[in-house]
């Protein structure tokens, strides 16, 4: 048997819209895409913030509960001075760098997801 022409009348599988189009047309699926992105970014932002700022915010409590800690010396500086004048700043920059890297990565993943035809 020789097939001279492909079957064209049978229903073809529906070619899915790209994620971009789903989002632009405000479909349910588009909303799910967006909720996923926003959720991921919110989780990332909040965790970087809470870990970094939370750790900092523990210090006043720590120094109040245990005043002796204030007299402890690191590199010739009192512990509060060492922590707040020197140690904090590199930590903040590092946290910021980590956040930027992760946020850009999750945006790239989102772009790959929605641009898939």
């Amino acid at each position, binding site marked *: 048997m020789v097939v001279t022409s492909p079957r064209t009348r049978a229903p073809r599988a529906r070619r899915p819209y790209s994620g971009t189009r789903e989002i632009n047309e405000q479909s349910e699926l588009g909303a799910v895409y967006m909720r996923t*992105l*926003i959720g991921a970014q919110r989780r990332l932002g909040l965790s970087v913030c809470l870990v970094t700022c939370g750790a900092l915010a523990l210090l006043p409590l720590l120094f109040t509960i245990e005043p002796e800690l204030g007299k402890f010396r690191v590199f010739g500086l009192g512990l509060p001075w060492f922590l707040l004048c020197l140690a904090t700043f590199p930590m*903040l*920059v590092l*946290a*910021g760098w980590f956040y*930027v890297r992760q946020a850009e990565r999750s*945006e790239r993943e989102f772009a790959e997801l929605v641009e898939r035809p």
Partner: protein
Amino acid sequence: MTSGYAVVAVMVVVLGTILVGAYGLRVSRTTSDFYVASRTVSPWWNASAIGGEYLSAASFVGIAGLIFAYGPDMLWFPVGYTAGYLVLLTMVAAPLRRSGAYTLPDFAEARFRSRVVRGVASSLALAIGWLYLLPQLEGAGLTLNTVTGAPDWAGALVVTVVVTVNVMSGGMRSITFVQAFQYWLKLTAITVPIIFLVAVWQVRGADSLTEPEFPSFRQDTEVSFQRQATIHAEQEIVIRGTGVVDGERLEDRELLLTSGYHRIDGGSKFTFPKDAPVPHLSTMAHNTNESWSLPASSGADFPLYGAYSLIIATFLGTMGLPHVIVRFYTNPNGTAARRTTLIVLGLLSVFYLMPPIYGALGRVYTPELLMTGQTDAVVLVLPTRMIDGIGGQLLGALVAGGAFAAFLSTSSGLVVSLAGVLSQDVLRLGGVRGFRISAVLACLVPLAMTFVSTTMPVADMVGLAFAVAASSLCPLLLLGIWSPKTTTIGAVAGMLAGGVPALTAGLVTMFTDTGDSWYEILLSRPAAWTVPLGFTVMYVVSLATQKHVPAGVQRTMVKLHAPENLGLDGSGSSSSGQERS
């Protein structure tokens, strides 16, 4: 420490600012140029400009002064000012840029499609801006007074005039150049003297800065009292000079200052002998250098509450400052906005290493400021005090120039953003002319306020502006960006519930004397109760009014969060008013 070099340095900074501004004038032509520098600014320029704008009088002179007077509790100011940018980076930077908003009121309108939300946000932005401008002008007065002996109002007037002229002629384009230049100027001006001061301190035997002794005069020191001061002397001191002590007039003669409290009138000038312990201002805690260096040494009531309130205000307040927000529009996209913010974080971290060193050296070399109460002057006085001759004078001039750069740059940024709000929301005058009229008005109000406000450390005043921003505009931004459930009514209720009490508390602290009342700390550090109030009211009212979720909120969320290069039509068909012509 009147010094000719310092006057020259201040003049050079003022002229330099005007010249760089005029250079920008040639390239700013259209309204779009005036407002947002046509979005052609690279992340490094932008980050330097943000840094230049952000490092205000509070950062340059105020922090060192507070640390000098009150010890390590005040280190939360530099830490908080920097950590505020981490919060801004992680929660606000990219979505805010993507919203296309130029000012906070623009963001409010873009997110909630409501004139009412916009109006409330505008009023709050104006209040915060003016609250923030006031200490800049007071700081300028202090600096000019310290280096030339000019009256306090002169410095405020100079800053007002230079800023108004500069903003009116160049707008934002020139301001971006001015600001970027200012950051590097300020960093140089605070770092170079520190290198010399630390070297001198080391060469002279590196006296411990935390001895268990009270600060004492290192040499015979002539002290002039600008204002009336009530001081407490621990032991008898023989002083010599002209002035009024306890109501008794002295003309160039000796007086035995008995131990106990004394009132010295403004305009007095006395020489205190070498090695005598420094009497301290009655309102200030009396600490040995050792006890000063420990936490909770400031002697304030409820130190833990105070620390947390300061932490909350500075961590969350940064994002609500009107002049900070404006800068994000000049980034080409959300990703660039994030990178810019990260660079800012680095630039601020470098700068904030310096002020605590001034504060600590001041305990040993300029202790008399603890007695006159002019603690904010420690950065300005230290170089001439520690280094004799022309070297010290030149370094002093550098610091004075840097300080003036700080007032000019922060004030310029504030005036640009306030003028934007005024011309669009209050005067309703469009175009370049409306912007210019608004710029004048934005300057005049705080200048008038400098004549009535009390003398409060500049960093404390700035702290109040942060508290108002953290209680009102911060909930608006955070909940507006991250929760689609936030409603128009909720936004208005939350901003008012947090902002009005914080603002009232701030004004009461600034313009009245609350003295030693138990509630004084609740008013001078309001953030710990007003910020939770603002957030809770905004969230709860939003949940209760879910029928009033603004139309098209899904589209707005797409616009705020989706990367720009995907061609996502987030703003939908109802996009309007975002791009300025």
